[in-house]
């Protein structure tokens, strides 16, 4: 089995865990970098439905909505696990599930350490391999991109 080391990040914020959790989830639109929007029009809202199985999606200014994934674990204010279903081309692929775990650890009075781990990145390789099977002729890069799109649509 091919495995890829998870991406791990942490950041200290000046807020209690409940507040940090709320900003991370309910107020995602406020801080999510606009440069990393999957919507074609500018990002208007980034929605995370507050429950296990809840959708995680972006809404663009022209009304289109783009899925990112869903909520796997919802344990405010300590733990959040999200399914990230975007491949390397920022395309949503319903068959791809990588996990983003976010832990909120109290650090004294009014500070929280937010620890993020993005794991199962090797599954992106599996998705690539599935796509690979669809491109049978030695096509160019455009053919591969087409396949990527196809796989994202099914």
């Amino acid at each position, binding site marked *: 089995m*091919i*495995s*890829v*080391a998870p*991406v791990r*990040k*942490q*950041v*200290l*914020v*000046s*807020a209690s865990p409940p507040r*940090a959790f709320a*900003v*991370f989830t309910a*107020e995602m639109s*406020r*801080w*999510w*970098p606009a*440069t*990393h929007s999957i919507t074609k029009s500018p990002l208007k809202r980034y929605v995370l439905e507050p429950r296990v199985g809840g959708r995680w999606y972006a809404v663009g200014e022209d009304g289109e909505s783009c899925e990112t994934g869903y909520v796997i674990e919802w344990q405010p204010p300590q733990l959040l696990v999200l399914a990230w279903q975007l491949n*390397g081309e920022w395309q949503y692929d319903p068959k791809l599930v990588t996990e983003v775990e976010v832990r909120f650890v109290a650090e004294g009075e009014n500070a929280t350490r*937010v620890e*993020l781990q*993005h794991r199962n*990145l*090797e599954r*992106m*390789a599996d998705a*690539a*391999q599935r*796509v*690979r099977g669809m*491109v*049978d002729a*030695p*096509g160019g*890069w455009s*053919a*591969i991109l087409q396949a990527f799109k196809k796989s994202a649509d099914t």
Partner: protein
Amino acid sequence: MAYQAALLALADPTRRRVFEKLRRGPLSVGKIAAGMPVSRPAVSQHLGVLKKAGLVGDSTQGTRRVYYIDPNGLAAIRIWLDQFWDTALSSFQAEFAKEKEAE
């Protein structure tokens, strides 16, 4: 982007077979070429392309050279996500500083 190079390398059906033969573990060129309709030098050439794309690595075991699937083949995508989360989390952190100023 290296991730694209990896996919491009795998678009060739013969190269894909070479890559897939390594899924169960490291193999020598001879073992990979066995049962394939292409010559050993051709297999070597495919391995070279896969190596350049970051998909396989090679090492010497005694007197022979073996090839294996490089677990860092997806390094490019990892780097991309690593940088992405850096940006996202600093933006998240800055949000609390803004709140403080507003108070």
